[in-house]
Each structure stands twice: as structure tokens, then as C-alpha cells.
């Protein structure tokens, strides 16, 4: 029997604002515990919340980028529960009038796991969204054997909750969903959305059912996945577990399970009697928001989305679709490429260079694209030198490496330093003549049509010139001599 998997994701994303959602305390990491706090975010009695316009604008922008509708009026509600990370005993959230409704996330091919990109079940699939609402993050608790310690620096950070429809059907799609969503959020400069830093967190609902069965299986919630890959691993484990239970005639119970990435298992946390009873009610401390003006303002700030950028790269720079998707997968990478390509005639070569050489060096040194010390115009200059035959591609790589550590140096000066000065053309010509006369059989074969052997002869000339000659020029010289 075949089983159908149904997955829905609830993703929490910390917004990149200066201040918290309901007070002016700074948002950030790494400060001394409880430094960035005030009566409001500590939940002290009587403290009143005030809405952060920036957080509302960013959420509306996320909605526009993801094709959501925004209701004309949006309001704030209290979600009641008891936990020491939220000492006023309710979280301010949104219940029936969230900032965004509907919309969807387009799954980009390059956002699937590398090993699964060859057999994507449904390329171009869009996962529908139920809603996006804005709420406040809670404090950070650290559990130890003798108690729980609480740091309120995080409490009150604006948090978007993005709820998907249960339209994801495999762990690979869940992986692609999270990566695509992350890319879009980064493009909008809404969040850094790094799961490992807790800026993006996700709860997963998953159920299985035999394909003969109409209604959905028992929904089980998974928690504690700290990376996109961990979400994929947890889902693989949990889906097989659920199928095994069903096959063995057992019964699944609606419950919450915790993923342990070290052991590679999900473990039961709690069984839900009913849905959580949070007793939502409108927060009397906060006034509703009319969204029309916010939408108008944010419409003007919608950035080009990754897939739109990729399309433009294919159209304007004639790069391949694959290269375009790689280049647009990271906003900073796309910017770097575009700036270089704009200063260069050989746009395709620029794409190759950025993908193969620039990224390789950055990865090697564990740097982000934004930290690349070599400016786009210098890179364009190096590529131009290769194109004109002044230096070889390998020499260009060496020059790039030197520039990487000495970004202020002049590429021409590096050429002299490294002795990449093109050899005297008379010398090269004499080497070419020598190689030709020493290899009469190879020359004959070339004249009979074996063009590939030119490369072999070129290699001989390169060797004799100690790498100083330019292979392109040698090739041309050889052809002139022989053919």
C-alpha cells in the first residue's frame, strides 16, 4: 500500500527592526543578559505597549512579496498561557484580523536539497499560505539541573508567524519551502532568517494516510529542529515511524514530539487533549491599524524577487538558466555579479568567474559575498585581461588570489610582480617554430584534420616558455604556421 504524506509548516521569523514590537528597547544579540529591557518587555503590571510602525510595515511588505491579501483593518489579541518566558501571562498576537491572509511560496529548484535536485516531483510548485501575523517573541530560557534561567533581551522582538496550508508532500519539499521563504525574506531585507541563530524557527505538522483513504491522518507536531536540514531529517524519521505504526495496526495519537538531532529520533512530549485553549480576546491596550496607507507605502518598496532576477539575468546577460538561479539565490551574490557584469563585455564569462572562482575562494575562507574584498570593477578588469589574451585564465586566478589579500593593489602591478608579463613575441614565435619542426608527425595529423592535437602542441610551447606565453596566442600562431 502507498501512503500519502501531508505536511504543514508554522514558521516564526524575527524581524530586522531597530526596536522591539511594543517598546523602544533595542533588538539584538550578544548583549549582557536582561540589559535591553523595560517594564513593557519584562511584563511588569501596568506597563503599556505601543505599536512599532517599522514591524508592521515589514510584515505588510512580506505579504506583498508573497502575494497575500491584507485586510483593511488589522487588530491585536491576547493569547493567554502561563510560562515564565512570558510573565504577563499572555502573548500579544493577532487572532481573527492578521496583517496578511492567503498568498504562497514558490519553491525554487535550487532550494531543494542538492541530492534531490535531479528528481523534483513538481518543479515550480507553489505552497499556499494560510496567513501571516505579527506577535512578540518571548524571553530565552536556559534549563539546568537546578533551575531555569531567563534572559528578557529577546522578549518583545517582533516575530512574524507564517502559516502554510498543508500542501507539502515530502521532506524535500519542506526543505525547499524553508529555503525559498528564507531567500525571499532576505531579499526584502525583512530578516536574516538564520535558523541556526534562532532568527527563523519552525514547527512542523505531519500526518500520513493510506492513498485509499480520503480524510487526513492523525496530525503530529514536531518541534526543536534547529536547521533546514534537521527539518528534513526529522520528517524522514517521523514519516517512516508513522507509516510503521499504521502498518502494524497501531493507532497514532494527536501529540507533540521533540526532535533529537543527535540521536536522530522524535520523542513524545505531550498528548493534546483538545486544541490549546488560549482564550484569545482583543487586547484593549492596543488600537487597530488601518492598513491602506501602509500597503500604499510598501508597494513602492517591493524588491525584485529571486526568480524575477534570474529571468532578467538570462534575458539581459545571456547566462544559462542554471547559472542565473545560482547567482540570484543570494541577494549579495546577485548584486556582486550584476555590478561586475555591467562593467564587462563578457557577461557569461563573468557568471562563470563569479560562480566558479569567486565563490570557491569565499567558501575556502568561510566568508560571505558581502565581505569579498575584491571589488566588482577589479574583477571586471581581470576578466577583460583574460579576454584580450593578455593573461591566461590560470594566471587570472592567481591575480585574483593576490587581490583578495591586497584589495588595493593594481592588477597590472601584480602581473609584473608575478612575472606574468607576456613573453617577448619573437621568443614565442621561435619556440613555436621549434615545436613545429620537432613534431612533424603531429603536425601532419593536424593538417589531416585532427584539430585536437593543437592543444597538445600548445602545451609543449607553454612548457618551453615556462608558462609565460598565452595559450590563446600560441594556438593562433600554431594554426597560422601549420594550416
Amino acid at each position, binding site marked *: 500500500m502507498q501512503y500519502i504524506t501531508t505536511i504543514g509548516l508554522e514558521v516564526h521569523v524575527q524581524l530586522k527592526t531597530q526596536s522591539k514590537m511594543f517598546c523602544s528597547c533595542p*533588538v539584538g544579540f550578544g548583549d549582557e543578559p536582561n540589559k535591553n529591557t523595560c517594564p513593557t518587555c519584562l511584563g511588569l503590571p501596568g506597563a503599556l505597549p505601543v505599536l512599532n510602525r517599522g514591524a508592521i510595515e515589514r510584515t505588510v511588505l512580506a505579504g506583498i512579496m508573497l502575494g497575500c491579501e491584507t485586510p483593511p*483593518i488589522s487588530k491585536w489579541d491576547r493569547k493567554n498561557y502561563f510560562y515564565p518566558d512570558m510573565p504577563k501571562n499572555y502573548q500579544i498576537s493577532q487572532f481573527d484580523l492578521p496583517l496578511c491572509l492567503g498568498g504562497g511560496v514558490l519553491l525554487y529548484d535550487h532550494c531543494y536539497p542538492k541530492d534531490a535536485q535531479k528528481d523534483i516531483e513538481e518543479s515550480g510548485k507553489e505552497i499556499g499560505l494560510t496567513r501571516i501575523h505579527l506577535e512578540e517573541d518571548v524571553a530565552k530560557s536556559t534549563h539546568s539541573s537546578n533551575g531555569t*534561567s531567563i534572559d528578557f533581551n529577546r522578549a518583545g522582538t517582533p516575530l512574524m508567524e507564517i502559516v502554510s496550508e498543508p500542501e507539502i508532500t515530502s521532506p524535500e519539499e519542506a526543505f525547499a519551502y524553508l529555503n525559498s521563504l528564507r531567500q525571499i525574506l532576505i531579499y526584502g531585507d525583512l530578516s536574516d532568517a538564520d535558523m541556526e541563530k534562532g532568527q527563523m524557527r519552525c514547527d512542523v505538522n505531519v500526518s500520513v494516510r493510506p492513498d485509499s483513504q480520503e480524510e487526513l491522518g492523525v496530525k503530529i507536531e514536531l518541534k526543536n529542529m534547529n536547521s533546514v536540514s534537521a527539518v528534513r531529517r526529522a520528517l524522514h524519521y517521523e514519516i517512516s515511524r508513522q507509516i510503521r505504526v499504521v502498518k502494524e495496526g497501531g493507532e497514532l495519537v494527536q501529540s507533540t514530539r521533540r526532535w533529537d538531532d543527535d540521536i536522530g529520533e522524535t520523542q513524545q512530549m505531550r498528548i493534546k487533549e483538545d486544541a490549546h485553549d488560549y*482564550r484569545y480576546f482583543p487586547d484593549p491596550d492596543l*488600537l*487597530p491599524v488601518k492598513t491602506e496607507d501602509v500597503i500604499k507605502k510598501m508597494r513602492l518598496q517591493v524588491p525584485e524577487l529571486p526568480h524575477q532576477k534570474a529571468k532578467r539575468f538570462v534575458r539581459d546577460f545571456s547566462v544559462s538558466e542554471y547559472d542565473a538561479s545560482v547567482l540570484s539565490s543570494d541577494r549579495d551574490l546577485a548584486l556582486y555579479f550584476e555590478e561586475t557584469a555591467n562593467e564587462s563585455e563578457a557577461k557569461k564569462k563573468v557568471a562563470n568567474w563569479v560562480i566558479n572562482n569567486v565563490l570557491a575562494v569565499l567558501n575556502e575562507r568561510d566568508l560571505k559575498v558581502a565581505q569579498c574584498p575584491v571589488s566588482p570593477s577589479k574583477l571586471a578588469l581581470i576578466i577583460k585581461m583574460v579576454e584580450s589574451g593578455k593573461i591566461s585564465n590560470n594566471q587570472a586566478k592567481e591575480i585574483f588570489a593576490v587581490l583578495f589579500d591586497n584589495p588595493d593593489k593594481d592588477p597590472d602591478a601584480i602581473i609584473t610582480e608575478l612575472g606574468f608579463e607576456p613573453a617577448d613575441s619573437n621568443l614565442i614565435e621561435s619556440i613555436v617554430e621549434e615545436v613545429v619542426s620537432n613534431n612533424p608527425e603531429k603536425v601532419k595529423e593536424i593538417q589531416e584534420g585532427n584539430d585536437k592535437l593543437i592543444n597538445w602542441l600548445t602545451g609543449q610551447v607553454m612548457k618551453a616558455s615556462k608558462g609565460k606565453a598565452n595559450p590563446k596566442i600560441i594556438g593562433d600562431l600554431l594554426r597560422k604556421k601549420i594550416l
Partner: protein
Amino acid sequence: MQDKSIDVNYVADLARLELTEDECERFSEQLNKVIDFIKQLEKLETDSIEPMAHASPVYDVMRDDVSRPGFGTDTALLNAPMTSNNQFKVTRVVES
């Protein structure tokens, strides 16, 4: 509007309150009276009345996204009954 009378024990449980049997009975009576009072609304014709998002007809009270320094750790912890490493210390919370 809910029809059945209020389950005081359940609500008390949600609010982490422990009630004696006597209290339970008394509050049940009182709260049901409150519900009955609200139920008067059912008798009114409300079809043509627009729902309100808030009791006060004011919108868009917001501040710009500008931060200012918080309390600082020492002040923040002044009321804490127990602290540890500059954090509030509470009884161990088990992930239930």
C-alpha cells in the same frame, strides 16, 4: 453566544486557580448571571451594525522604529527574587 452554563472548574484550571467547592458554586452562579446579562444582546437587531475592532474608534497609534537603551542588567534584576548569571532564576521548567 454560548448556551450552556459556564464550567467554572475548567476556567479556574486554565487560570491556574484552585477553588473550594463552595467558591465554585458561588462563582458559577455569579458568572452565569454575567453571561445572562450579555445575552440581552441576542434580542437586539445587529445585522446592520458594523463590527468593531476596538471599543474606542481610534486607529493607527504607532511609534517610529527607533530604539533607546533599556534598563540595563542591574536595574532589570532589582525585583528578581532569585538570580543566576545576570538572569532571572525560576524553578526548573520541564518541557512538558
